[in-house]
Structures are given as C-alpha cells and as structure tokens.
C-alpha cells in the first residue's frame, strides 16, 4: 500500500500531493496521514471523487485516511468499538444508468476525402442524440474544437444538447493554440485534469 505523510501541509496541498501520487502510479490502496480536520475532509472527498472507498481513523492528534477499491465507506470515531456501516448513499440512485463519454479529437471522420469526412462528422453529431440520456459528456480536443465555433455545421445541435443538460467540455489549450478562444459558441472551457477525471468516471469512452 502506498503511503503519504501530508502532515504540516496547508490546504490545498494535501489534496495536490495525493493527486500527484495517484498520477505517478495508480495504486490499488492508498494511505494518507494528515494533521487537521480540513485536510482529512478534503483528502477524503478527493479519494471518493476518484472512486475510492475511504476509512478514517484517528492516531493521536493525526488522521489516517485509507482509500481502497473494496468495501463500504466507514467512519471510525476515536474511542468507538466496532465500526458502524453507513447506510447506502444517494450516490447509488443512478447506478444503473450507463455514463457514455464521447471524445472528438478531429473535425472529420476517417481518412480519404476531407469533404466527405466533415459531412460524416456533422451527421455523427446530429445523430448522437439517439444515445438518449446515457450520453453523459461530450469533449472536444485538438482539431475537434473547430466543431464548437461560430459557423460550425452542427453548432445548433450541440447547443440544443447543452440546453437539455448535456455537459460539453472544450479543451482550452487547443482553443488557445488555434486562436479560437473568443469564437467558441458552446460548451465549457476545460483542462486535462477534467478530461482525465471524466474518462475515469465514465462507463464507456468513445473516441472519434
């Protein structure tokens, strides 16, 4: 089990160190020692957000946050005997609906004729609604960001997706690279961390 001593660190440092450790190697289980309540709560939230189950125990004045991929969330008080299981959370309410993430890294589909490729992409975006409410997030990166700007063929369809509550994320680095930051008409500007997190939370990732 990987261990991290985050004592003496001020928020958001404990979360950032935890994140760095997860990025370095994705361990099955992880243990973080912190010395204040705020850091304990924040590290616990971060691990749960990343899909870990967490257990908190007190050691002297410090807190040990243990994250694992099995079992239930348990909070163990200082002098408690047997740990109590928390009731199943509201997080489970939508457990049966699949979350599909679609990533468009291009503004045309396939190789060959570019004009045909662009037509296909427009048709793809217009037809995407057939996925229904399992379509969870739509991300545009690299040349794909050109599909979100003023004048793009399927812009109207993307806007109506967004109006219906679909989260559309557009890579900020890519918009800046093509000098299109001002021209984006739909979606939120995003960063690589959001994209990685979305990939991790999704049940299915489709890359165009």
């Amino acid at each position, binding site marked *: 089990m990987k261990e991290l001593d985050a004592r003496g660190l001020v928020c958001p440092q404990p979360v950032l160190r935890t994140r760095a450790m997860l990025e370095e190697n994705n361990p099955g289980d992880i243990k973080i020692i912190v010395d204040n309540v*705020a850091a304990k*709560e924040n590290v616990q939230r971060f691990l749960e957000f990343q899909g870990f189950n967490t257990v908190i125990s007190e050691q002297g004045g410090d807190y040990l946050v243990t994250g694992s991929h099995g079992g239930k969330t348990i909070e163990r008080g200082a002098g408690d005997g047997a740990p109590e299981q928390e009731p199943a959370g*509201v997080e489970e309410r939508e457990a049966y609906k699949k979350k599909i993430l679609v990533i468009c890294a291009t503004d045309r589909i396939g190789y060959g004729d570019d004009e045909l490729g662009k037509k296909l992409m427009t048709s793809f975006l217009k037809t995407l609604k057939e996925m229904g409410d399992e379509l969870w997030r739509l991300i545009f990166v690299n040349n794909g960001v050109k599909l979100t700007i003023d004048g793009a063929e399927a812009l109207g369809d993307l806007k109506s997706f967004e109006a219906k509550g679909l989260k559309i994320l557009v890579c900020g680095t890519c918009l800046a690279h093509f000098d299109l930051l001002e021209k984006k008409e739909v979606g939120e500007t995003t960063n690589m961390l959001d994209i990685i997190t979305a990939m991790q939370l999704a049940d299915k990732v489709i890359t165009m």
Partner: protein
Amino acid sequence: MTFPTDENVIVGLDRADDAGVYKISEDCALIQTVDFFTPVVDDPYWFGQIAAANALSDVYAMGGTPKTAMNLVAFPASEMDLAVLREIIKGGIDKLKEAGVVLVGGHSVEDKEIKYGLSVTGTIHPLRVLTKKNLRKGDRLVLTKALGTGIVNTAIKGGVASAALVESVTRLMATLNRDAAMVMADFDVGACTDVTGFGFIGHLAEMVGGSGMGARIFSRQVPIIKEAMEFAAMGFIPGGAHKNRQFRESMIILPDTIERSLMDILADPQTSGGLLISVRGNQADELVSSLKDKGVGDAAVVGEIPGDDLHEQGSAEHIWIV
C-alpha cells in the same frame, strides 16, 4: 472585557455587526468600518479593486452611503517592485471612484507579506440603520451574489481552474454591493448583512441568533458558482469552510438528501460576497426582479423566516435546510 461607550453609539462592539454606527445629530449617524487582507488573486490591480469592494460592502450592508476612505498598506518595499503597490492602490482608487467615495488619506508599513484594505466612513439616518438582528416572521431571504468564491480560489491555488473561471470569479469579487443596496432601499427590509468569512451559514446564523428566529433555506435556489460544486466534491475546500460548518453544526437541521458539496458551499468563506437581505415576504419576488433589472443577475430568494406554526415546533434559532 468592557468597552467604553456613550449614549450616541447605535451599533457598537457589544453587538457584533458589519460596522459601527455613531449618531452625530438627530438626522445623521456615521458608519465606520475597516477591512484588509492578503492577496486573493495574483493580479495586483484586481486585488486592489476586490479589497476596496470588500471594505465598502459593510457600509452598504448597514443601509448607508460610503463617503470617505483611507488606505491601509503593508508592503515588502525592499524586496518587491513598487510598481506592484502602485497597481494595487490604483485598483482601490478606481473602485472608490466607481462608488463615488473619496480617498482622504492612508498609512503604510513595511511588512514581509502584502496586505491591503481600507477604512471606510459613511453616513445614514439614525432611524434607517439595518442590522443583523431584525428578522421578522414571514420575511423571505434574498441573496445577491453567487456563493463558492472560497472553494474556487482554493481550486485556483491548486492549478485546476480554467482561465475563464479565474476571470469570472475575480469580476464577481470586485463587484460592488452598491447597486444591490440602492435597490434594497426601496423595500421593507428588516435585516441585512454581507456574506464574507463566516460563509452564508455563519452570517445567517448571526442573524438567526440575534433575532431569536429560525430560518428555512431553499438550498436548490441558492445561487452558486457552478464549478464550485465539482471542486468541492474533489476536496478543494478551504479550511475555513470546515470550521464554519462545525462551529454552527448544532444550529443546522440538515436532511441527508442534501449533497455534501452543497453544504460545503453554504459554509464556504466568501471574499467580498453579496448582501443577504430579509424582506417582507410579499415583496421578495419584486425585490429580486428589481435587482436583476439593475444588473444584479445572481439575485434569488433563498429562504424564509417561517410563521408561528414552525416556531412553536421548536425551530426558533435553528437553520432548516430543505
């Protein structure tokens, strides 16, 4: 500790409020307040604006009109370029100009860490002073700025916020509460405060405790910076939010259907937050639409002071979150 006082003190240290109020004649009282802090954003010009908007806010929250201000500056002049200080002060002055307030002096000291703020003096009619302590049964609560600046600023420190979000939250913090206060003056308002370091829940708790009334909060209607929910779920929460929540835990009735991140946001310490206004229930919707007409776009009805039935059930001095 006992504090010196006299019969002209309308609001003093004995009743912690946004600012002190001192009667100088039958139709005029002075409002005095001071506020300063370390930088909350990297850009010195915007930091100056935010510090000024924040210092002026206490006068607006009391229902008064700010008139004069003095700078308070701590700056490491031997290590840092004075151009940085110039930008901070320029930001402060520009915000004062926007508010129609004149800078009449100031004081600076050499310090390792930058700090900037202002002492502000305003005026008000002695009978028109709005404190935190007059919630009335049947009032509704209106909030004028979105919550979540503390969480977003923590995410910014962690390097996970987009440039667009940095800009929009900076503008939000630098926005004066003047327009909100001007609109509020035309309505039957019982109590008002501005939401700052103790978070929405902490400042509401002061109103609730001071008035001997309970409040019910419609958590789904509270305006929030939308990215703050996700940052809260990721653990980018300032230490102050945890302290604010714990400190008021015994007052709060929280059903388990409310997501943890939403409660984190209600407890999140705000920099230069909005006004929390208690208005006659039948005027609340009109107040919100007038605020929106004046450009206070985040304004929303966020709660109510329940009538007798609920108070008889023992909800006095509690905050019910629904």
